[in-house]
């Protein structure tokens, strides 16, 4: 019938079998580049180690020859040369790896959002959006830190240990090489052991800082309530507690870093090899240069190992986060969309039927119960009911934001569940109760459903929604920015933009959630005109408190606690439903109407 936007058929990016696989996918994303980065890493470990050996050789030459020889000069030149080679190679390697790391972060973030976005609203109800945000930003950044610097440094360190033990073997003997190797393995084991002790505290620290941030943000958002309810002191005490808890955890963590056991292993290893080499030299088994070389090598290795404990923690955090992210990405919908093999032909201008519809927000209570009714083609329907009676929920079902828990909704006899959601949403549009606008230009918000809309179309929609009335007062008209960095709009203004947005979507079935808005009478009058424009010639379902809409409706549905307690036209309900009578009498100025009708 008409095309709206791009057809989006759900997430089509890669998927992973577990959190670990998600993390390890780093290795399979750009294999050749990664191989290059790793090769350069090995080479640069080699060049980083070389000077330690060369200094020993140079001094040996000096000692033996007793003067500066050309060979001595050659060795010095070799030191500078290996420095230069190190410079080039390690820069290339590092830079390649860094780009890999950042592209990993970028890709994961994109996949995360794309995946999360396609989850049904049940998911978004269950998950706090600010938590999802901090996962998408901070935790994914931490995943990247797991590959860069952590994995890189760990790999680099392993290569260094191997190269250096081999070099120790070459400059001394196999025993010292074995001892050095065992020493470093021991260091690693101790470091991992230590990391295991710290990990739970780290996790707790991260949680506490999360709680602290959330609590304080909540207080500042609701500061008017906090102060005027005289709860300041209470909240200050509560914050103090959280802060102290955090501070104690921080103290524990900090103290664990003191008396760091793995360093003792290194310390003993160095002293041991130092002593051992000294004895061997004094017994004439090794040259003096061996002392210089062994110590030089050990110092080089110590320098590269210094960061290892930190890197283990980063790697661990990355894996934990990866699992959490993976869980969110692979959330299993308790009410999965049915698989639709063939899109049926549908007459969207036909009758709409609710057949035994029950619905629950996955919380053990039915928000809608046993709804049975038919809306004839083209009707104007009004829905009324108290707070929480299920009016907005009913509209959400019609947009297929949720599927009924039981029963079905049919359009021209075709069950909704046989229609893919994006098809439903091409034909059904809603003006929501609490209007959500995106930050950006007003015109982009109006053309949200139809990005290809021309300026004329946007303008027409704005005029029809009675929104031009205030837009033309704004400094840049339709191009005015709204949202965080733009102008603030009042409730009535926002609502009219939402109407303009719906007008451009040009739906067959229009849903208006306008139950009781805080508008002054002038705005309300404009709004009514806008709504009249919008609802012309199409099936319209309106949640309303407006007397006039009720009286004019072809069908009124009265909801109470999720059930229909009365249904019919205004005249019929006035006669048959005492509930409706009660409500009608209380409606603004119905007495006037009744009196007016009588007189």
């Amino acid at each position, binding site marked *: 019938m008409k095309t709206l936007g791009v057809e989006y058929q759900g997430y089509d990016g890669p998927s992973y079998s577990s959190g670990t696989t998600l993390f390890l996918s780093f290795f399979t994303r750009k294999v050749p580049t990664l191989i290059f980065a790793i090769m350069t890493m090995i080479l640069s470990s080699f060049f980083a180690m070389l000077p330690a050996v060369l200094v020993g050789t140079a001094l040996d030459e000096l000692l033996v020859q007793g003067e500066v020889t050309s060979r001595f000069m050659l060795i010095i030149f070799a030191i500078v040369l290996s420095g230069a080679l190190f410079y080039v190679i390690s820069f290339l390697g590092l830079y390649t790896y860094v780009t890999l790391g950042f592209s990993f972060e970028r890709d994961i973030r994109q996949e995360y959002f794309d995946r999360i976005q396609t989850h049904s609203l049940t998911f978004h109800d269950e998950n706090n959006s*600010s938590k999802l*945000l901090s996962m998408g930003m901070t935790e994914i950044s931490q995943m990247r830190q797991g590959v860069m610097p952590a994995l890189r440094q760990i790999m680099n360190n392993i290569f260094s240990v191997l190269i250096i033990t081999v070099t120790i073997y070459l400059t001394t003997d196999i025993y010292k090489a074995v001892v050095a190797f065992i020493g470093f393995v021991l260091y690693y084991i101790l470091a991992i052991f230590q990391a295991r002790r710290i990990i739970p505290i780290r996790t707790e620290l991260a949680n506490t800082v999360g709680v602290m941030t959330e609590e304080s943000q909540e207080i500042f958002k609701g500061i008017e309530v906090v102060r005027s309810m005289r709860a300041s002191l209470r909240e200050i005490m509560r914050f103090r507690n959280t802060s102290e808890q955090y501070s104690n955890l921080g103290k524990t963590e900090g103290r664990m870093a*003191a008396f760091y056991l793995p360093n003792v292993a290194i310390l003993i290893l160095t*002293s041991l090899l130092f002593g051992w080499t000294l004895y061997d030299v004094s017994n004439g088994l090794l040259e003096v240069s061996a002392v210089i070389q062994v110590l030089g090598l050990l110092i080089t290795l110590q320098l590269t190992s210094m960061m290892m404990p930190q890197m283990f923690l980063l790697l661990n955090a990355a894996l934990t986060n990866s699992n959490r992210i993976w869980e969110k990405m692979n959330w299993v919908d308790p009410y999965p969309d049915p698989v639709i093999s063939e899109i049926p032909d549908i007459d969207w201008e036909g009758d709409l039927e609710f057949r035994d519809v029950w619905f629950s927000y996955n919380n053990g*209570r039915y928000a809608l119960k046993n709804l049975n009714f038919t809306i004839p083609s083209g009707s104007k329907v009004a829905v009324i009911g108290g707070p929480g009676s299920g009016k907005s929920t009913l509209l959400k079902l019609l947009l297929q*934001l949720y599927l009924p828990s039981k029963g079905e909704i049919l359009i021209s006899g075709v069950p909704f569940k046989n229609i893919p959601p994006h098809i439903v949403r091409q034909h059904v549009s809603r003006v929501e109760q609490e209007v959500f606008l995106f930050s950006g230009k007003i015109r982009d918000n109006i053309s949200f459903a139809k990005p290809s809309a021309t300026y004329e179309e946007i303008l027409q929609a704005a005029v029809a929604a009675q929104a031009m009335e205030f837009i033309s007062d704004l400094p840049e008209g339709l191009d005015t920015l709204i949202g965080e960095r733009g102008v603030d709009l009042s409730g009535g203004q926002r609502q009219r933009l939402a109407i303009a947005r719906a007008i451009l979507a040009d739906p067959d079935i229009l849903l208006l959630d306008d139950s009781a808005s805080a508008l002054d009478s002038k705005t309300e009058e404009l709004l009514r005109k806008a709504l009249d424009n919008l609802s012309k010639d199409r099936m319209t379902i309106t949640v309303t408190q407006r007397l006039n809409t009720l009286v004019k409706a072809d069908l009124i549905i009265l909801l109470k606690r999720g059930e229909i307690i009365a249904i019919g036209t205004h005249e019929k309900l006035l006669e048959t439903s005492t509930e409706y009578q009660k409500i009608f009498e209380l409606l603004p100025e119905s007495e006037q*109407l009744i009196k007016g009708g009588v007189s």
Partner: protein
Amino acid sequence: MSRHSSLFADKTRTRKSSELLRVLWRYLSKFKYSVALVAFLTLFYTAAVTYQPIIVQDAINLLIDNATFDTITLLVVFYLGLAVLGWVTQSLVTWVMASVQNELVHDLRSDTFEKLVEADFSYHSQIQSGNITSRVVNDTQEITTGLNVFTTSVTNLLVAFATLGVLFSISYWFGLISLLAIPTAMVITTVISSKGKVRMLKVRSSMGRVSGKLAENLSGVSIAKSFNQEERTSSEIRKLNNETYEYFKQLGAMMTMIFPSITLVSMIMIALVVYSGGMLYEQGLVTIGAIYLGTVMVRRFLSPILALSNNITNLQASLAALDRVTDILYSRPAVGNSPDAKPLEFKGGKVELVDVTFSYKTRKIESPGMMGGAPHMKSKGENGKIENVQVLKRVSFKIPAGKKTALIGHTGAGKSTVTKLLLRFYDPSSGSVLIDGQDLRDITLESLYDTVSLVSQEPYLFVGTVMDNIRYGRPDATDEEVYEIASMVGADEFIDALPDGYQTQLTESGKSLSAGQRQMITIARTMLKNPKILILDEATSRLDAYTESLVQLAQQKLFDGRTTLVIAHRLSTIRDVDQIVVMDDGEAVEVGTHDELMALNGKYTELYQTYYAHQGIEAIASD
């Protein structure tokens, strides 16, 4: 929410470093003994690490001279001893500093939070809650980085001097070669703090944009779904994500230069030492051991120098954070208890506005991405905010004690502003607000809040149970009292139907409740507090007429004979009030009863008539 942590935002600093350090010292002085201990331990640490390579030198020289077994053993033991000493002293420093740092941040954080809770509402309305939170959580933490810089700088300085001393004592040449480290460090620091900073800022603000968009698209997910625009939101994120990646690459290119450059320089320095050592050795001026010592020491000299110059950058960031925190710590709220404030003497609750003029202070936008840019011009529309526009202009009216008064007028007329002045969220620019003849500025805020309560236009709920929320203003209320109030306003019916009844957990400002339900809870919350003066600012706008009538009944029963101010657009909400005040564009234009005002045939009549016109009564009635 560390999205806008302002690591590099030192350009806006307003205080001198010395002044800021004094502030820090005020907090640090509590730990002065710990600090002294740390300084003392640092001396030992420096001695240990400096002396260790000297032992190696001695060992090499002794070996060349065919040392005895015993001297070697002694040297090895000594070497090990120094290593252990270094480890122990460093560990002790870490241990002590762990307490100092964490306790200090806790003190700072709590004080900052407390100050912010009591800060002026004008402050809160100008700055996003996320940014305020960042002051409390991130900036205070940033200050410890500075503290760390302090202690590590001391250690680094000591080590650098000791190392330089050793080098010069071996040979002037070695000393001079090692000084190469200084220009190297300076070049690297300059690059980092100029170009690096610019690129860092770009990365940060770009990340900020990703985060902002992500936040928005997550909250607007149902809209994207409703209009089939998932592809679009996804590509918006992709675009920003790619942009950030490009900035990251630029930053990465620069940062990855640093480490290889340092290594290159240190290798050149080692080569120079070995070369000049060779020359000196020929002349018998140095030993082989000393040359070795020289190579170790030049390399070592580089790292404290680099650390020191790097610390200067960190310290800058830390001082900037301290500056922002100091702003808060030393701020004096404009609205607060005056020194001779007395508790309010309640005498019936007559409220009076005398010649009140008021304007909200300039709304400055705290630039979130640090890149700032020109703050957006605010529109002049009905809700637009422009500098110092007078929102109330010489408003005077009385709210009689024990009576119900209605305040009506178009959006933006200033109704909510009046309620904010009544609660002394702000003080009027001129004129005064009186309760029972006492100026609000002369009474304590506590007594004011005990007397006056507001149900505000925007229902705000806290994370917690429904019960906690209703009880928020009176934590000592019994369960029965809560049930009673809820049933009086007609909220019990839906609360009982919630999954866990009164114990249902509310998340994210009550996302799982309907709009009307949220409003009902705020009404119950305020009514439970049982104030002597009640203000309802469009408190029933999200309720249907039937529920509204229940609330009105409850209000009649509970607040009969108490001063009540009601703001509403629906005229049905205010049909039984004793007095009506009509506001228009910041002025109180008409005051009187319905009949009196109708007789005036002015603004009220106009409002009244549009109201019926839009209800379409005539149209229907004439059908």
